[in-house]
C-alpha cells in the first residue's frame, strides 16, 4: 500500500498549520482574481513568484497551486453573474450559467459549479497520486531526443488549442522560441540578441514577459472601452439545488470529470479545451439539446467539472517530466527553480514530502473552496461592483513591485513595458499570447536537448525517428498539425471557438 503511505505523508505535510494557512491564502487570492475580470491567474502568479522566495519550497508551491485552481472557481462566479468569464476556461460556463442567472436560478448555477468542481477536483487529485509515479518511471528512461520530441508535441498542442488562425499561432510559438534564445548561449558563452545590454545576458526575465504579455496587455484591452457591468446580484435566493437538480447533474459531472482528467494531461492548455469538449458532449447526449444556451443545468455542471479536473491533472506533466502543460505550469517551474529544485522525474524520489504535500494540498484546497465559497458568495459579488478604474492602478503597482523584486533589475521593468506593448499589438492583430509564452519557456530547453541529441547521435538527425518513443511523439505531433489544417476539422474548430465567444 505504497499509495496510502505516500498520501499519508502528503497529508501530514499539507495539514501543518503553516501550510494550511498558505493553502488558504492561495485559494482565497485565487478566487479573488478569478472573480475579478481583467486579471488572470498567469499574471498574478507571475507577480507573486518573487515573493515566494522567502517561503519554504512546499509552502510556496502549495500557495501558487491554490491560486491556480482557486481562479478556476472564481472565474465561474463571474461567468454566471455578469456573463463575462473571469478566466478563459470558464468561457463556456457563461453561456448557460448566465441564462440561469437571468431566470433567477443564479444560486443553483453557482452551487452546481462548486459541487461539480469539488467532485472533479477530488477525483483528479487521486488520479495525480496514482499516475504520477509510474509516469515518472517512464520519464526516467527519456533521453535528449525524447525530451525534444515531447516538447515539440507540447508546442504543437498549444497551437491546435489556440483561438483563431493556426498559422498565426504557429508564428507565435516560433517568435516565443526566438525570444527564449535571448541571453548567453549555454554551450559557448556567446551573448545572443542582447543588443549589447549586459542586463539581458541571463535572458529576458520570464516574469517580466509573462506580466507584460498577459497582465498589461489585458489592462490595455479593458481600457479600450470603459463601460459598466451588469451584475445579477438580486437573484441569489436559493443556493442548494433540489433533489431533482442533483439527479440531473450527476451524469454531466461524471462525464466532465473523465473528459477533463484526460485532456488536462495533454500539454498546451488542457483545461480550456476540456470545458469546450464537455459542453459539446453534453449537448450531443442531452434529451433536450434545445435547452442549451437557454439555461441548461448540464451546460454548467459538465464544463465546470471538466475544467477543474483538467486544471488538476495538468500538474502531472509538470511533476513527472518537468514540462509545463500551460503558461501557469511554466510559472510553477520558475517557482521550483527559484527554490533550487530541479523540476523533472527526480522530484518524486528526491523530494517525496514536497511532491505528496502538493498533491494532498490540492484536495484540501478544493475542500476549502467549497466550504468557503458558498457562504462567501455575497462577498465576491460585492467585489464585482468595484469599478475597474480603481482596480487597474492597484494591479500596476503590484506588477512594478513584483517584477522589480525578482532581481532588482531596472531593465526588467523596461521589458515589462515593452512586452506589454507587444502583447497589446499582437492581441489587436488577433494573435493569442499563450503559445508565445510556452515557446518562450520551452525555447532554451528545446535547443539544449536538440543539440545534445545531435551530439549523442554523432550528427545523425534520424535519431529522432529511430528511437521508438521519440518517433511516436513526433508522429503524434504531425498528426495533430495535419488534423488542424484539414478543412473539415478546421470548420468544426472554428465553430467550437465561436460558440464559446458568443
Amino acid at each position: 500500500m505504497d499509495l496510502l503511505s505516500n498520501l499519508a505523508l502528503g497529508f501530514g505535510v499539507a495539514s501543518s498549520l503553516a501550510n494550511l494557512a498558505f493553502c488558504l491564502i492561495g485559494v482565497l487570492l485565487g478566487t479573488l482574481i478569478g472573480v475579478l475580470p481583467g486579471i488572470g491567474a498567469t499574471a498574478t502568479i507571475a507577480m507573486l513568484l518573487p515573493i515566494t522566495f522567502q517561503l519554504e519550497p512546499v509552502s510556496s508551491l502549495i500557495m501558487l497551486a491554490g491560486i491556480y485552481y482557486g481562479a478556476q472557481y472564481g472565474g465561474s462566479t463571474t461567468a454566471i453573474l455578469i456573463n463575462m468569464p473571469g478566466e478563459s476556461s470558464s468561457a463556456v460556463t457563461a453561456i448557460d450559467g448566465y441564462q440561469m442567472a437571468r431566470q433567477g436560478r443564479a444560486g443553483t448555477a453557482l452551487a452546481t459549479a462548486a459541487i461539480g468542481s469539488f467532485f472533479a477536483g477530488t477525483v483528479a487529485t487521486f488520479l495525480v497520486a496514482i499516475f504520477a509515479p509510474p509516469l515518472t518511471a517512464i520519464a526516467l528512461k527519456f533521453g535528449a531526443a525524447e525530451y525534444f520530441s515531447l516538447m515539440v508535441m507540447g508546442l504543437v498542442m498549444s497551437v491546435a488549442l489556440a483561438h483563431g488562425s493556426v498559422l498565426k499561432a504557429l508564428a507565435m510559438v516560433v517568435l516565443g522560441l526566438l525570444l527564449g534564445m535571448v541571453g548567453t548561449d549555454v554551450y559557448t558563452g556567446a551573448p545572443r540578441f542582447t543588443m549589447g545590454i549586459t542586463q539581458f545576458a541571463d535572458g529576458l526575465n520570464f516574469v517580466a514577459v509573462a506580466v507584460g504579455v498577459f497582465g498589461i496587455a489585458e489592462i490595455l484591452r479593458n481600457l479600450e472601452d470603459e463601460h459598466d457591468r451588469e451584475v445579477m446580484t438580486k437573484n441569489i435566493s436559493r443556493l442548494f439545488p433540489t433533489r431533482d437538480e442533483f439527479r440531473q447533474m450527476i451524469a454531466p459531472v461524471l462525464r466532465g470529470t473523465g473528459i477533463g482528467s484526460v485532456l488536462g494531461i495533454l500539454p498546451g492548455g488542457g483545461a480550456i479545451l476540456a470545458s469546450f469538449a464537455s459542453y459539446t458532449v453534453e449537448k450531443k447526449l442531452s434529451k433536450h439539446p434545445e435547452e442549451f444556451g437557454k439555461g441548461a443545468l448540464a451546460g454548467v455542471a459538465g464544463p465546470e467539472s471538466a475544467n477543474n479536473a483538467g486544471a488538476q491533472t495538468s500538474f502531472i506533466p509538470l511533476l513527472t517530466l518537468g514540462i509545463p502543460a500551460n503558461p501557469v505550469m511554466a510559472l510553477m517551474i520558475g517557482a521550483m527553480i527559484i527554490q533550487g529544485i530541479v523540476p523533472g522525474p527526480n522530484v518524486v524520489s528526491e523530494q517525496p514530502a514536497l511532491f505528496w504535500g502538493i498533491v494532498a494540498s490540492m484536495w484540501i484546497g478544493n475542500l476549502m473552496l467549497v466550504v468557503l465559497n458558498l457562504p462567501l458568495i455575497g462577498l465576491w459579488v460585492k467585489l464585482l461592483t468595484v469599478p475597474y478604474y480603481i482596480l487597474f492602478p492597484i494591479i500596476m503597482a503590484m506588477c512594478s513591485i513584483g517584477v522589480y523584486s525578482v532581481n532588482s533589475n531596472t531593465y526588467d521593468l523596461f521589458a515589462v513595458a515593452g512586452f506589454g506593448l507587444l502583447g497589446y499589438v499582437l492581441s489587436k492583430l488577433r494573435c493569442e499570447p499563450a503559445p508565445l509564452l510556452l515557446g518562450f519557456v520551452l525555447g532554451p530547453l528545446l535547443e539544449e536537448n536538440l543539440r545534445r541529441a545531435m551530439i549523442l547521435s554523432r550528427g545523425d538527425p534520424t535519431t529522432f525517428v529511430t528511437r521508438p518513443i521519440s518517433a511516436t511523439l513526433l508522429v503524434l505531433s504531425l498528426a495533430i498539425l495535419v488534423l488542424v489544417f484539414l478543412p473539415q476539422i478546421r470548420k468544426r474548430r472554428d465553430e467550437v471557438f465561436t460558440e464559446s465567444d458568443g
Partner: protein
Amino acid sequence: MSTKPNDTTDIAAGLLFMAFAAFFGLQATGLEMGTSLRMGPGYFPAVLSAVLFLLGAVILFKALGRPDDEPFGRIAWRGILFILPAPIFFGLTVRGLGFVPALFITTLIASQASVRMRPLSALVLAIVVTIMSTLIFSYGLGLPFRRFGPWLPL
C-alpha cells in the same frame, strides 16, 4: 495594384512576424553556425528565423484579396500613454527616490489611464496603495527596498 479589399489585420501581423524574423535572422548571421553535429550558437536561431519569416510571408500572402472579417476596433491610446510609462518610472526612480515615493507616483501615473478617474480619488487611491504596499512588502515580507532614497533631502 489590386482594388479588392484586403485583410489589413493579417497583413500587419504578417509584416510584424517578418520584421521580427529579419531582426533575429540578421543578428544570427553574426553568430557562429557550427555543424549539425556540433551546433553553434547561431544554428537554431537561424533556422527559427527562417521558419518565422516563411510563416509571416504566408500569413501576408493569404491576407491579400480577402476582406477583413472583424473590425480592428478602438485603440487604447490613453492607456498606452499612461500605463506603459508607469513601470518604467518605477524602475528609474525606485533606487533614487526610494520605494515609498516611487510607488506613490507610479500609481498616480497609472491611474490617469482611465477617463473616469477623478483627481481626488486618484490621490486617495495612490496614498492607500502606497501605505498598504509598504506595510505588506517592506515591513511584512521584508523585501530589501530602501523606503526613502538618497535623492531626497531627508
